[in-house]
């Protein structure tokens, strides 16, 4: 009797799975999602393409793969242009809010040495939380207005928080939660799908053409590409956050960029950071 019920149950379950597979074909892609395998393949590709570049050196983007660029970078790093932002960031981070609380009260380990854990998947809200989003949520929780993303104070606070995590490898977790896997898959799709009138994907430049010249620039390998953020780009003449980079990349391929911290950008950051697990945080950084 019990066996019969179990058998019926099994059959019903099998039917249900079959039905679901028929009704929801995209679900099968998610079922096949294997972030750990993706990560192994991703890292193997770059290690093979740049055999002389150490894992942590990938954080240095174009400077890891081009000698002449590296020499200029080393000269610039004698007194890096992000120094001012770094000091500003430390001050901002330590200045209490009007209610007397500080950023440290919002973060694990008082916000020191935690950059490598961002973005993370928040199981309560079911979404990806980047460091910048967490910074603004901290402000809002304490009655302060959120900071503008991309530049200025946000980049400065990022710079300081990253500096306290230098040397700590990216340790992004993808919990066993279908929503987390879905976010990861969205980010992965965003990375590989071509967009914009120029029909480029992130991967067109930072996988297939990594290390090659595009106009005057050497394209950074995608592995470790976010480990140096925020960055001072000479091209900008100022600091910029991950959002600023995503938005400018999108615009360069003539695609209408999304708002900073759009769910797609957060998913992309989640995917890219997870791909770079093991690469040590080196931010803030400089770029041409």
């Amino acid at each position, binding site marked *: 009797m019990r066996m019969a019920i179990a058998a019926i149950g099994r059959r019903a379950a099998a039917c249900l799975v079959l039905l679901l597979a028929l009704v929801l074909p995209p679900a099968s892609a998610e079922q096949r999602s294997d972030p750990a395998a993706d990560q192994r393949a991703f890292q193997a590709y770059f290690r093979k393409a740049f055999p002389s570049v150490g894992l942590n050196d990938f954080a240095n*983007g*174009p400077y890891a793969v081009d000698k*002449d*660029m590296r*020499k*200029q*970078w080393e*000269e*610039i790093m*004698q007194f890096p*242009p992000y120094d001012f932002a770094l000091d500003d960031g430390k001050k901002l981070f330590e200045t209490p809010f009007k209610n007397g609380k500080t950023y440290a009260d919002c973060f694990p380990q008082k916000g020191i040495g935690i950059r490598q854990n961002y973005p993370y998947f928040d199981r309560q809200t079911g979404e990806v939380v980047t460091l910048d989003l967490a910074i603004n949520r901290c402000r809002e929780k304490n009655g302060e207005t959120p900071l503008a993303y991309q530049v200025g104070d946000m980049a400065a606070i990022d710079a300081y928080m990253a500096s306290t995590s230098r040397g700590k490898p990216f340790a992004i977790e993808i919990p066993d939660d279908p929503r987390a896997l879905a976010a990861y898959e969205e980010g992965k799709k965003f990375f590989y799908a071509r967009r914009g009138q120029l029909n480029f994907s992130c991967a067109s*430049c930072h996988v297939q053409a990594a290390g090659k010249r*595009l*106009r*005057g*620039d*050497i*394209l*950074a390998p995608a592995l470790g590409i976010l480990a140096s953020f925020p*960055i001072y*780009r*000479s*091209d900008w*003449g100022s600091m910029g956050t991950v959002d600023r*980079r995503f938005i400018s990349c999108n615009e*360069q391929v003539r695609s209408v960029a999304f708002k900073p911290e759009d769910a797609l950008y957060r998913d992309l950051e989640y995917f890219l950071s997870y791909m770079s697990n093991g690469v040590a945080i080196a931010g803030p950084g400089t*770029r*041409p």
Partner: protein
Amino acid sequence: MSRIIIATSAGLAVERRLVLQVLGIGSLAAMGLAAGLVPRAQAAEQSLAWPKNAFAQKNEAAALDALFEKPIVVPSDKISLDVPEIAENGAVVPVSVTVALPNVTSIALLIPENPFTLAAYYPIPEGTEPSISCRLKMAKTSDVVTVVEADGKHYGARKQVKVTLGGCGG
């Protein structure tokens, strides 16, 4: 008339140097000994105001004339000019000059293809090493020229830096 543009290749440099000696004597005669009579210390003091006229010049010859009063610039391998072959960004080109000549009194940096040629001028007081590093902007591909004053004479070196359009990458 008495100024010589510095040559890049060694062969040309030797040839020019011979010409220079001839011209040098001529110009010295033309100028008389007046220039030589100005004591070095006084010359250094005079140069301690921002050289407005030199910074306003739009070509190499005019800038050098304004800075050094018609110098005869001899190429010298005692000057090491360190610049990138290709600038990672024209807005930030690291430039280093180290001079292995005695009694250096100033180092000038010029970028002939920029709107204003003279980029920076560093008087070197006694006791300060004739070696500087800084970062310069370059509007487009150009030579970077350094002219060094030592013992009242002028020595030069130049190297091309390619500046390509950026805007992507990173």
